[in-house]
């Protein structure tokens, strides 16, 4: 019996979220008096998971799994869960995890709860706290099945160090042609760019920026902060920015440490998707903009004056604190 955690990686290296889900898995294992086994695909630095309480790593090394494949990954995780007799399986909230978790759920006849923001309230009955209604509420949800799957919300639990020695074991699941019936033919991704899902800081622009030609300063601000760029829905609908940058209730969720909203009014649908961010800064020329009510810090002013000044100040600050 153990807690199994799926630790995601990119180009052989664990993502930060892998350490967060491992930290979460350790908390669950402690509550259950059990231990944490991780499953990773084509990763190198497997021992590094030990720092977050993982005592065993099942490392899958398989060229066929070099690109993420939801079906094949889910089948591998399911087989690892069965081998380990896992009672609880932990995944992240990335697009890939949200793709494979329901497949895993059906395979294992498990109960799956996504968007979980805290360690279980209790383990008998097994109850977890999750966000519902796009961050407008929380539900305490009981999972009644023998196998339980938890999707941890990004940045909600944080990294908790828990020094353990991780043993690494090669693991290869039994996969068939059916697991590769959906084939990846092209990946279109800007290399080296910070993604909204992984970003600690997100800089977001709205219709107040007037047009796509004015995004230079948004990108520059994001560059200085090592942040991802995002936008409100009308901005992507008008084609000023790519669809993938649209955040909010019907776009991508944001749960960063810092969210900077520039020229965004703060409509209820926008706020619903970004309110999980810890600190929110609003720059808007209208003091009555609803976003100020949901923000921690605000500057009432013209973005075209404030943002360039902020970039200069941050450059100075970074130079001093480097």
């Amino acid at each position, binding site marked *: 019996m153990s807690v199994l955690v799926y630790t995601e990686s990119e180009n052989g290296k664990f993502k930060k979220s892998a350490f967060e889900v491992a930290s979460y898995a350790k908390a669950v294992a402690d509550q259950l008096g059990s231990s944490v086994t991780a499953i990773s695909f084509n990763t190198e630095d497997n021992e590094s998971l030990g720092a977050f309480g993982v005592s065993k790593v099942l490392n899958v090394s398989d060229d066929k799994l070099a690109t993420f494949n939801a*079906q094949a990954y889910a089948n591998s995780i399911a087989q690892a869960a069965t081998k380990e007799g896992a009672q609880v399986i932990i995944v992240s909230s990335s*697009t*890939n995890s*949200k*793709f494979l*978790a*329901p*497949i895993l*759920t*059906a395979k294992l006849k*498990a*109960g*799956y*709860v*996504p968007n979980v923001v805290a360690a279980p309230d209790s383990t008998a009955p097994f*109850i977890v706290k999750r966000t*519902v*209604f*796009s961050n*407008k*509420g*929380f*539900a*305490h*949800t*009981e*999972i*009644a099945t023998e196998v339980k799957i938890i999707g941890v919300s990004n940045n909600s639990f944080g990294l908790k160090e828990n020094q353990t020695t991780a043993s690494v074991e090669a693991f290869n699941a039994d996969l068939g042609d059916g697991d590769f*019936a*959906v*084939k*990846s*033919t092209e*990946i*279109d*991704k800007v290399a080296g760019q910070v*993604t*909204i*899902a992984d970003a*600690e*800081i997100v800089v977001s622009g709205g219709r107040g920026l007037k047009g796509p030609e004015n995004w230079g300063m948004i990108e520059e601000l994001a560059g200085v902060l090592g942040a991802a760029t995002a936008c409100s*829905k009308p901005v992507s*609908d008008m084609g000023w920015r790519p*669809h*993938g940058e649209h955040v909010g*209730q*019907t*776009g991508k969720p944001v749960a960063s440490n*810092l969210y900077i909203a520039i020229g965004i009014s703060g409509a209820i*649908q926008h706020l619903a998707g970004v309110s999980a961010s*810890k*600190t929110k*800064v609003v720059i808007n020329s209208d003091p009555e903009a609803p976003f100020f*009510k949901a*923000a921690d*810090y*605000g500057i009432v002013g013209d973005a075209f004056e404030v943002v360039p000044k*902020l970039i200069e*100040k941050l450059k100075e*600050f970074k130079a001093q604190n480097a």
Partner: protein
Amino acid sequence: MKILVCISNVPDTTSKINFTEGDTKFDTNGVQFVINPNDEFGLTRAMWFKEKQGATVHIATVGEASVEPTMRKALAIGADEAIRVNALPTDGFFVAEQLAHIIKDGAYDLVIAGRESIDYNGGMVPGILATLLGMNFVNSCINLEVDGNTATAVREIDGGKETLQTTLPLIIGGQKGLVEESDLKIPNMRGIMMARKKTLTVVEPIEAVKATKDTKFDKPAAKGAVKLVDSVDELVNLLHNEAKVI
């Protein structure tokens, strides 16, 4: 091609969220219900397949009689027939089992569901459904083309997109991008009149487990007032020393 669009009935995006009965139930009082936005994109894409490729489009919803106005709206947009499974949809696994049963009987080639319902944000029905039925599955789908038995789907990935090749029968979890916002169909008078005459079949649920249950709800703690600052110097100082985020 026979298409089923799974429609989830959700509170309008502007709804204030409240809980009732000792915070154990969502308070539907005064709440307007709509077609889940992700499903609206899927339904419009299905209409495109109907117009361009002669597809037949059915819709299905697991819900009590109160969901029928939302289903009629989907019929008014142009779906041909509707099926309602008469049960309260409180658990994603349960809903998927009900839909799987309908899909088995209906022999659908393509099932279009949404990436997630905007109420409980489960994001699990299409994936569970696909697995129960052994159908191919693409989630977070932002474009879909079908040519004979093959499908080309584009899905959103963190930081970009990925193109996938597969075959029918297929289930997708769709979202914005499947069609453009400006192409979303709004029912017109003729559509609304015709929708009244279209078949809406009600079936009773099959026996299925409920894997999860919400025991209690609460709301986020009220937020403190915003700190308005006059200069970027002050802002950077606060972000560094007070919020400790830079």
